[in-house]
């Protein structure tokens, strides 16, 4: 297990005051006082790529800035393990054709056991993210802190055989966090259940304000013309994100708007072995398709460049067939870019049809293309929807909300308040207000 160094992402709650207001800052501080000094350990599968790593990159330093002692650990495993956990992920999202072999199960559990033996157990709350490190709870010796499983994916209709394998581990947790009530499996009864929406950090390199000159520089570096319409998409290369559907839609858009450009960006995450395969498949399907820019972190596209492309896009599309929440949509909306997206997972919470963007049915490429064209041809409409989207994110999906949610959960769960003088002091002083 490797501890992630987030010292480069230093944050203070006061940095957010211009966005959320001083009153909000005060309220967060008053919650933080109650758990000041509490040690919280987050464990996930990757330090780079995907929404979970993205969120932790901000949540960890922000939590530290309000007085919590937070560690972020990433499990160590070989590529075989991630091939297995990707299959588990797909099965949990509803791929009924997957059956794990005995050897795969053994490998999955072995990695959990090995990592658990390295885990620093001296915490007040341990938060395990997603299925990869899930079984670690079984192998954690001398477990005295509450353990929480944060499931970022939709478990409403899982593959029964894979769910049967995982469920006993899920039931060992003290609390579970899901994105939406409908994601909670009906047969999970026992652990506390929290419903928490993910969120974005408006000050991270991916979301902070950029000067137009900075955006232009990025576009020029990748040969994207700033004077022609840009259709953007930021996602892992993954079958659930339907990258081939994005290409089909773009082809239809091109028929109506010949000068449109597509910028598809994906990062190869450490825990996603399917990424390369789907990237190559996407490239193959894009052969001969003019103005399609398919870029990855291997092309030097990092958070800053993603930020620039999302800002420069005339419209962002997201055609996922299954989703957890989809922070790429949140990011685009925050930048005032309207989104055309499928009715999948948490997307309809963000895209209010006709207000912050347009919703389309899964695999309905013709409608998606029509909506994209509409937004390209009516800049005033794109501007209005984009501005509504930014406000919707400001009201509902900023990281300071997530921080408050986590603080409340820690107040709920930190059980050794009385035994730790620094926590006791904090609680007493806040309580005597």
């Amino acid at each position, binding site marked *: 297990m490797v501890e992630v160094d987030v010292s480069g992402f230093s944050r203070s709650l006061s940095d957010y005051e211009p966005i959320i207001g001083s009153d909000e800052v005060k309220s967060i501080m008053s919650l933080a006082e109650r758990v000041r000094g509490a040690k919280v350990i987050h464990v996930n599968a990757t330090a780079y790529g995907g929404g979970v790593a993205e969120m932790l990159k901000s949540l960890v330093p922000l939590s530290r800035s309000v007085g919590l002692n937070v560690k972020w650990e990433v499990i160590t495993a070989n590529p075989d393990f991630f091939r297995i956990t990707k299959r588990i992920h797909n099965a949990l999202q509803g791929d009924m054709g997957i059956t794990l072999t005995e050897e795969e199960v053994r490998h999955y559990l072995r990695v959990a056991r090995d990592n658990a033996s390295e885990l620093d157990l001296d915490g007040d709350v341990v938060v395990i993210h997603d299925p990869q490190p899930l079984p670690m709870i079984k192998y954690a010796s001398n477990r005295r802190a509450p353990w929480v499983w944060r499931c970022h994916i939709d478990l409403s209709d899982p593959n029964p055989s894979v769910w049967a394998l995982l469920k006993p581990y899920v039931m060992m947790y003290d609390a579970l966090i899901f994105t939406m*009530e409908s994601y909670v499996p009906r047969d999970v009864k026992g652990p506390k259940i929290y419903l928490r929406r993910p969120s974005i950090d408006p000050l991270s390199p991916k979301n902070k304000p950029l000067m137009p000159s900075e955006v232009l520089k990025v576009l020029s570096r990748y040969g994207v013309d700033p004077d022609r319409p840009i259709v953007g998409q930021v996602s892992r290369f993954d079958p659930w994100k339907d990258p081939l559907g994005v290409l089909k839609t773009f082809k239809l858009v091109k028929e109506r708007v010949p000068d449109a450009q597509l910028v598809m960006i994906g990062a190869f995450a450490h825990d996603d072995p399917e990424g390369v395969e789907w990237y190559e498949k996407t490239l193959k399907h894009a052969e001969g398709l003019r103005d399609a820019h398919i870029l990855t972190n291997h092309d030097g596209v990092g958070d800053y460049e993603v930020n620039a492309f999302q800002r420069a896009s005339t419209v962002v599309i997201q055609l996922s067939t299954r989703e957890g929440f989809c922070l790429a949509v949140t990011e685009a909306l925050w930048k005032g870019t309207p989104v055309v997206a499928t009715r999948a997972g948490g997307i309809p919470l963000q895209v209010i049809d006709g207000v912050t963007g347009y919703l389309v049915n899964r695999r309905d490429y013709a409608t998606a293309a029509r909506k994209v064209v509409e937004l390209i041809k009516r800049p005033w409409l794109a501007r209005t929807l984009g501005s509504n989207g930014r406000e919707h994110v400001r009201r509902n999906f900023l990281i300071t909300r997530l921080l408050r949610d986590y603080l409340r959960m820690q107040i*709920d769960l930190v059980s050794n308040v009385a035994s730790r003088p620094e926590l006791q002091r904090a609680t007493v002083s806040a309580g005597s207000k």
Partner: protein
Amino acid sequence: MTLRLRDVAEAAATVLWDEPLLKVLEVMVGEGGEGPYRVVVLARHGAVRGLITGRIVLEVLAGWRASALRLKVGLRGLLEEPVHVFADEVYNALPHWLGLTSAIRYMLENRLGYVLVVDEHARLAGIVEEKTILPYLAGKEYGVRVGEVMERDLRTVTPEEPLRAALAKMVTHMRRRLPVVRDGEVRGIVTATDILSAILSNLGKLKEALNRSVREVMERNITHVNPDEDLGVAIRRLVEEDVSSVLVLSGNRVEGIVTRLDALLAAAEVLGADGVASIVEARHRWRGEVSAWRSGRTLKNNEAH
């Protein structure tokens, strides 16, 4: 003119973020035990700071939430803690100018029982809930049997069980109401508000309050429908009786339950979200015209006199 959220939003029950949890309990129980299930937590300048539901309060009282804090300050102390410690974040805040059709579609797409309506400064302007919309949908036939839309996965209690058991079932199974059943026959219904009310009336003696039997607090007048009746009948009962659910009975046996949200989602299945929105728009206008006509007539009568 398009109907906006602000045109139909209702006043929401509110508390300030630093008011004690006890205040929420009092608001929820209300006069005669008929207070709101959702209470909005506000900052002093009116911005939305969170939402607290009957379920959250039950979870706190059952020791599911804030258990560590309870160990430290005890139950009485817990009730004195500021409410924002227990509230949930609000993720469904929509601007007051939003078209009603968009808002209804948003609620239905996401299966939400409510949205909060806020102004440009994120200050609360009202709430739109299932119960705001359902009255507009009453008096229609839907061509769908109640038995097709009811929730069948029931949790029940017996009249003899203590309230503590009912509380545990509500918290564990995330329910806010339980049919009371004995020998296979329904005897009543017990809701989160009934339990909160019992606790509030016996503050300081939580153990005693929770040892009372379900029979003592349950509602005996059950609002019910039978599984073969049309969905419209269930909606009418929900509206006319102003209850949050109707039991579905075959004779005296409970077959299922239909909550306000179940009914709204089922109606939307039939009418489509746009269909629901256009009925609300049309009926809202009609009501407005009737009331304008009435007040005009009253004015004329007054002038005549």
